[in-house]
């Protein structure tokens, strides 16, 4: 018990932060938001997976990946392929020249299902693919880069190039991937209609549970000796190497783990949004993920979630009224965070958060369960 408290929760301070986040996304959002808005928040929260992965990889490990969209996309496409095959049953597609294959394949004159689509007929294999393939891909990239001591800017550029290549591949191979439109018209999961409100609620809660689980698991890793080593490698790689560690293996591991997390986020995205497209794979989404982590505070797992929510609320609000200004605004925000608040929202919380918690614990003593408090708490969490 003590182990769980100290290691997973990170003691009193970590526990408070975790509980506030859990209350916000597990209780307050579902209570106060209608299902349309909640589904939107659910979509944002899937981006929090790669943002959290970047806290581990970039914040702690010092390895900047500008290609996390690749892993998010692989997870998302994996799930989408399964759902698409289910939606493309022979009855549903009998007007096609080849019934039983996804519509975009038929449009592109394919007459049979490509071999690599076959495993996605099975939900078990699909889930395994979502959990294993992105991590395996990260292993290959990681082994090729880190064993050769490629790091820093070079690694960032190479991951970005991989994101570009994958996007081009998806867009170009329309018959196999659905092309620029992505994989759309996803309706059921093992016969269960995923477009209903109740399904959306269920996916929202599964998503939140997975996200909180990922945060706890990440904390467990960071509080182990592996976590200290990650920081040590970031700050003094040579000292670690000359203390008898094979540094590349540690980098490869954290890169694979970050890919796994991102992939889970991608799969949850597909389930909640009902489609997957190359626009969630390439450079722009990959850089956005870095911005989410930076704004949240790149050393804070929980901060990454707030950073993701804040930017996406902002994006939705602004891009409705000033779509062309949004990119500049986000760029400006990123630069100012890096220059003036290098620890992001988490840094602000560390510096000023105790004013709010003090007030909160005082008012809690006087009036136990007034709705005012709930509001105040949601303000503070979103701040």
């Amino acid at each position, binding site marked *: 018990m003590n182990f769980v408290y100290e290691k997973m929760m990170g003691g009193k301070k970590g526990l408070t932060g975790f509980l506030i986040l859990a209350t916000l996304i597990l209780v307050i959002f579902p209570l106060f938001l209608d299902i349309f808005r909640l589904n939107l928040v659910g979509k944002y929260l899937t981006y929090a997976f790669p943002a959290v992965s970047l806290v581990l990889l970039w914040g702690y490990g010092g390895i900047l990946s500008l290609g996390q969209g690749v892993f998010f996309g692989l997870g998302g496409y994996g799930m989408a392929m399964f759902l698409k095959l289910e939606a493309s049953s022979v009855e549903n597609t009998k007007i096609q020249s080849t019934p039983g294959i996804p519509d975009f394949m038929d449009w592109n004159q394919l007459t049979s299902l490509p071999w690599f689509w076959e495993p996605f007929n099975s939900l078990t294999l699909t889930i395994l693919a979502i959990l294993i393939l992105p991590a395996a891909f990260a292993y290959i990239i990681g082994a090729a880069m880190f064993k050769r001591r490629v790091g820093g800017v070079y690694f960032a550029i190479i991951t970005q190039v991989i994101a570009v290549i994958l996007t081009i591949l998806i867009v170009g191979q329309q018959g196999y991937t659905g092309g620029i439109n992505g994989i759309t018209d996803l309706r059921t999961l093992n016969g269960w209609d995923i477009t209903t409100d109740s399904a959306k609620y269920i996916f929202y809660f599964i998503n939140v549970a997975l996200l909180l689980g990922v945060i706890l698991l990440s904390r467990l890793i960071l509080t182990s000796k592996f976590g*200290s080593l990650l*920081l*040590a490698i970031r700050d003094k790689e040579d*000292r670690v*190497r000359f*203390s008898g560690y*094979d540094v590349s*293996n540690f980098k490869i591991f954290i890169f694979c783990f970050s890919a796994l997390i991102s992939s889970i986020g991608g799969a949850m995205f597909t389930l909640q949004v009902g489609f997957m497209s190359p626009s969630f794979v390439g450079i722009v989404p990959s850089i956005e993920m870095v911005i989410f982590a930076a704004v949240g505070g790149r050393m804070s797992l929980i901060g990454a979630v707030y950073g993701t929510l804040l930017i996406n609320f902002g994006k939705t609000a602004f891009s409705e009224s000033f779509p062309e200004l949004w990119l500049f605004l986000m760029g400006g925000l990123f630069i100012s965070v890096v220059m003036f608040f290098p620890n992001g929202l988490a840094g602000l919380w560390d510096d000023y958060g105790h004013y709010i918690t003090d007030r909160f614990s005082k008012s809690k003593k006087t009036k136990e369960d007034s709705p005012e408090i709930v509001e105040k708490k949601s303000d503070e969490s979103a701040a």
Partner: protein
Amino acid sequence: MNSNTDFTLAIEDLTVSFDGFKAVDSLNFYLDQNELHVVIGPNGAGKTTVLDLICGKTKSTSGSIKFLNEELTKMSEHEIVRAGVGRKFQTPSIYENLTVLENLEISYPYGRTVAGSLMFKRSSEVLEKINQTASEIMLQDDLDTEAGLLSHGQKQWLEIGMLLIQDPQLLMLDEPVAGMSVKEREQTAELLNKISKGRSVLVIEHDMEFVERIAHKVTVLHQGKILAAGNMEEVQNDPKVIEVYLGH
């Protein structure tokens, strides 16, 4: 040349050239068990480069380095460390953001794989070894201090402690008393005399007073070659050494 020897370290014909410039030039060098050997020489003589070659940081152009009869030139850095070679860098190289205890813990020679580090437990055995090492390097009261807050001298000690906790057979220290006060130098000399028992120590140092206090043997390096070697007195009275190094 492949014959086994009793030496802890046997360097033969070692050469490294950087774009044609030979920083180390056909060097032969032997280190006995339990020997504390100091290498001196003017700036740029190639002293640090020799340590880089031994610990695998720099790959040699030709020649052999045998440590306990094992060839090091083909091994990777972490393998060399695991074989029993510890090295302190010229500028203190510690983890400034971690505490003294964590610095020592990371250096503790177990849990060196990914899985091992994830499963690693701070057992009483580990803590005991950390405490013992910390008191050896006079940092027993600073275990919870962030390493970046230590004085320059204490940082040097911490790095020495990070090596000691691995119990290496060969300890290499690059300018361990640079930036230390007179009192700290004395304490360091005492420390080195203590820790050189049961292992070989190779020290690079400029401070002649300090060298005199610790060295069993002294080698003078100049332009990648050995200029003179012997005990302190012999070296100090060598006219060549006086001319290129001690004279000014």
